[in-house]
């Protein structure tokens, strides 16, 4: 396993374009996080301090940071599709197989890299959230700090699933740009199907079904936190309540998609003549 990871890391880190993108995908969420945590003085007119809103309180901070950091996953998605696209355009995939890498090992080396980067991203976000939380949070008892750290698990699963989907599209179309276009098409397609089901029956059923779709199920892992922030501000408004927790069945759905995409990527490569 380490051999395969090592192999892929060499391919990625010696490539300037992917090195920059990896760097950006890690640094950008941090910059945003740190910028938002400091007090910004708008030329003496007013000061903006997001910390005052209570969004950096434990345990809500886990929810907020993972939700926003997940929006930056697109940068690493480019790295994932290009690491497949480049193998095809340089024909190095063929050479790798001739040199004695099995098709299974080839897919696994990509997958391990995805897991590795997702893990690093999760750990970084965990550490950063913890530090900012310790600084701002009004509550610092261990039981409160570590409540809702399941958002971190959800974040990790979400990243792995999303990048595995990119891997699958990369294997399917061989070209990075087209693979990204496919992602976009899938996104639209999910909404078209949602619309179709709504038209045929009703919105509630349609939304329930949509929660099983790949992109939507990944999104559902970490629900949007805005409503929750509102809830904390106006605790008496009952119509704002919604279920924002991470549910085990949501994780199961996403893990099933991940397994399916990984398997399909392998099947595509296995049946393809290079």
């Amino acid at each position, binding site marked *: 396993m380490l*051999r395969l990871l090592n*192999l892929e890391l060499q391919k990625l880190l010696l490539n*300037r374009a992917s090195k920059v993108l990896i760097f950006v995908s890690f640094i950008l969420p941090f910059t945003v996080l740190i910028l938002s945590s400091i007090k910004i003085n708008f030329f003496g007119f007013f000061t903006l301090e997001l910390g005052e809103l209570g969004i950096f309180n434990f345990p809500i901070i886990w929810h907020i940071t993972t939700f926003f950091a997940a929006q930056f996953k697109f940068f690493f998605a480019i790295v994932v599709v290009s690491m497949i696209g480049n193998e095809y355009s*340089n024909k190095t995939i063929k050479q790798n*197989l001739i*040199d*004695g*890498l099995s098709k299974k090992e080839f897919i696994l080396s990509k997958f391990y890299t995805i897991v590795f980067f997702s893990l690093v991203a999760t750990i970084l976000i965990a550490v950063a959230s913890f530090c900012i939380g310790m600084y701002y949070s009004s509550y610092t008892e261990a039981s409160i700090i570590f409540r809702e750290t399941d958002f971190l698990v959800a974040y990790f699963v979400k990243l792995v699933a999303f990048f595995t989907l990119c891997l699958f599209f990369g294997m399917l179309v061989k070209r990075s740009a087209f693979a990204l276009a496919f992602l976009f098409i899938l996104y639209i397609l999910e909404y078209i199907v949602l619309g179709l089901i709504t038209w045929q029956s009703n919105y509630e059923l349609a939304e329930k079904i949509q929660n099983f779709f790949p992109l939507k199920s990944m999104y559902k892992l970490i629900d949007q936190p805005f409503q929750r922030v509102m809830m904390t501000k106006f605790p008496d408004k009952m119509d704002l309540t919604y279920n924002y927790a991470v549910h085990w069945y949501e994780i199961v759905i996403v893990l099933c998609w991940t397994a399916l995409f990984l398997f399909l990527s392998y099947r595509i490569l*296995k049946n*393809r003549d290079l």
Partner: protein
Amino acid sequence: MESILTINNLTKKFGYLTAVKDLSFTIKKGNVYGILGPNGSGKSTTLGIVLNVVNKTQGDFKWFDGTVSTHDALKKVGAIIERPNFYPYMTASQNLKLVCKIKGVDYSKIEEKLAVVGLEDRKDHKFNTYSLGMKQRLAIASALLNDPEILILDEPTNGLDPQGIHQIRKIIQDIAAKGTTILLASHLLDEVEKVCSHVVVLRKGEKLYSGRVDEMISSHGFFELKAEKQEDLIKLLESNTTFKNIKVENGLITAFLNAPMDATDFNKLMFEKGIVLSHLVQRKESLEEQFLQLTDNN
């Protein structure tokens, strides 16, 4: 003799097209094999199948004694197919390091093999700055990294200039001299003739011949002759049953043999008959002539 690769009834179909048809042959250790065939005769497809990049339709093949999986067997094989494929943004030594990681070879081999192909000075230059000849030499270095049991080369001199062709051919001959088994696919016949001891001839995916180069067609060769008394010579040759046909071109008589005959015996015979030869050469058909004869007959 130990066999390295055995192919049994291998067939590959691309849709309607049958690229390889019921092909069987065996590669034995220590020989230099050539796979001959015109473009599109299934050479590269056959190599692709045994190298794990093309899926077979029918039949089977086994590497060595058949106990190891194909991708593990390939770690003991060195292969170059068509164009050299490397990561353009990596230097030569970084590219070779990656191959070492795949094959499980020690990094110390990198310097050694780069020296074999004469690329030591350029090892820290990026692959995309290389000329085609250098790329091809790097590919050979990469294929040699694991000191392979067999070296597979598919059109290694394609697209190279005469110097490049000469360099590659020299490297191949050196490797062959060390006793490494080589499988060389090419449509350049003199290339195969210069280095190979055995050939497999393919046409439209079918095997026409496999065996030693010199036994490819049942021929005893021919004499090229010149003499003062040309008419007498021709008359004499025509009356002799050892010769099947006689050709005269620009004053040069070519007499094809029916049965083996030594040049010394022939010369003696002529002298006894009172004919003095001014030119006598005994030759066998070149591989090209043999190949054309073989592919036309079938």
